[in-house]
């Protein structure tokens, strides 16, 4: 293990980690304070004017000082939609990872601690689900959900559905990580001691084993948030995620895509850059965390 001071020193001596941390912090602050910072509220139809639509960024000919990064087809300022959209992307990303974490840690603990057929069954299920891929499962589930319900109903539940589906589809990553660290801890003396003094299995798992599995969980969480944000963006881009009137970064890119051909690239480009910056910062931090906390975990093995 590493002390907090050592952790901080490692962080401060790595320019890549500092850079990624700053970018992430700025994006999170921007999203959280979007209602205060954004020049416009893109959800408020009263503030929108169709006359403002498809304006280029303010420094280009035809640009308007009210819209730094230009406007989209509905006259929404691209900067404002990005600020709000980043928040929705982050909310879904973090929410999905919380669901993954709860499901995955619980099932991983059970599989690792109980062993036997429960373990075999859960791990086979994890194998199959992983090879079907999260995105494929999510696409089909959301396609069916969308086909089955009315568009308005769908729009109301889109955030919850995205969180649940991405969360459920990705539990195996956490479960496997937790399971392998449980197997590592299970036969150590302190666990034996807890069992010998007659603590029930549930208590041994939660109080004694779980804390020792948290480091790898923390490491993969960061990368999982990045993956969940990417998955959400892909789903929204396909029209299976967030609706156009409550756009995430993915749905912003979707709504701007067709305008690329007529030269209005800014509607797509700026949300795309923010999405890349967000995911890249999370991935770099995740890689850095893994190197510092647990050099044995490696991406690509799983």
């Amino acid at each position, binding site marked *: 293990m590493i002390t907090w001071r050592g952790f901080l020193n490692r962080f401060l001596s790595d320019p890549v980690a500092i850079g990624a941390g700053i970018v992430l912090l700025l994006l999170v602050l921007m999203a959280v304070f979007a209602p205060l910072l954004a020049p416009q509220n893109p959800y408020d139809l009263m503030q929108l004017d169709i006359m403002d639509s498809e304006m280029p960024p303010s420094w280009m000919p035809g640009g308007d000082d009210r819209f730094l990064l230009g406007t989209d087809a509905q006259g929404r300022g691209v900067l404002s939609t990005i600020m709000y959209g980043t928040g929705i992307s982050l909310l879904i990303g973090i929410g999905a990872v919380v669901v993954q974490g709860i499901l995955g840690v619980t099932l991983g603990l059970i599989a690792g601690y109980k062993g036997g057929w429960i373990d075999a069954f859960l791990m*086979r299920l994890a194998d*199959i689900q*992983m*090879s*079907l*891929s999260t*995105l*494929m499962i999510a*696409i*089909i589930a959301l*396609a*069916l959900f*969308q*086909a*089955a319900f009315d568009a308005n109903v769908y729009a109301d539940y889109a955030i919850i559905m995205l969180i649940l589906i991405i969360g459920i589809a990705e539990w195996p990553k956490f479960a496997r990580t937790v399971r392998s660290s449980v197997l590592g801890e299970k036969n150590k003396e302190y666990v034996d001691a807890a069992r010998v003094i007659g603590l029930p299995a549930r208590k041994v798992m939660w109080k004694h084993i779980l804390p020792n599995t948290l480091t790898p969980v923390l490491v993969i969480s960061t990368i999982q948030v*990045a993956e969940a944000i*990417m998955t959400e*963006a*892909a789903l929204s*881009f*396909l*029209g*299976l995620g967030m609706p156009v009137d409550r756009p995430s970064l993915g749905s912003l*890119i979707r709504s701007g*895509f067709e305008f*690329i*051909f007529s030269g209005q*690239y800014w509607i*797509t480009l700026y949300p*795309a850059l923010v*999405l*890349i910056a967000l*995911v*890249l910062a999370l*991935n*770099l931090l995740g*890689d850095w965390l893994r190197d510092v906390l647990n050099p044995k975990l*490696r*991406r*690509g*093995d799983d």
Partner: protein
Amino acid sequence: MHIIAFLIRRALQAVIVMFVISLIGFSIQGNLGDPLRELVGQSVSEAERQALRDEIGLNDPFFVQYARFLGAALQGDLGTSYFFKRPALDVIMDKFPATFELVLGATIIFLSLSIPGGIYCAINREKWIAKTIMTGSIIGISVPVFLTAIFLVWIFGVELQWLPAFGRGETYEMPWGWETGFLTRDGLAHLLLPSIALSSIMLPLFIRLIRAEMMEAMGTDYVRFAKAKGLSTARVRYVHAFRNTLLPVVTVGGLMIGTLIAYTILTETVFQWPGMGFLFLEAVNRVDTPLIIAYIIVVGLIFVVVNTIVDFVYTLINPMVKLPGAKS
């Protein structure tokens, strides 16, 4: 592990997966849209509707209906597309070559770049080219496929106008009805951007995987022993070390099939590539239930078949799994 036990387990798993998929397909059929409306329209009285429901078996018990669905599905009958008015399976299979060739093109690109790239980065860890490739790979992992696709369309299709960015272009029909884009100049030009886009996420993943596995192999005792035997550097690297990186690469490759199929939907959407994924999204928008079911079942089947092939290849290249009758 014994190969027969292995194959039986594999087959069993395939059957279970297909069973679950068929159940999903069946429950969609019963609940998504109204099959009667598609058959007779809405201007029919309630009594007539009930009679019709009885006639086509919609009031039968669940199990009977599922058995009927399964029986038909096994004979290749997955219903008739509401929109195309043709058997759903035929509609899907018409689009199969387009998707297959896209995946093939992408696979050729990412394998031919990631293997030399990964090996190079493992051997020349400290060189700036290797460091640049590794930095590039983490950026590559962080750019979603559909964004790569959009950027390619924008730069090479719209701004520079070097390459076509839509559809398959001119195709050549093989005697057995397969439309291929590989045999015409125009077809190949159309294939290039979508294939690059689809390979863009696999490439960095495989470079990192091959590099990591190759580095691990280069540090093993058997590679040291191979060096101590006085073998040439090339033989040590490519026969002793690289042979051992193939096993994990095949395993991960197998795990990536589902991801690759999912990404074809994204790529086909951006490039309006007339493949199965594009068709599927259209079917979702039109609530064309039989076509949705057909797509899910065909994709499930592809997944199961390819996975079985990958497992079989794995047993072939892994000497730890032996064919029965072989001496040991």
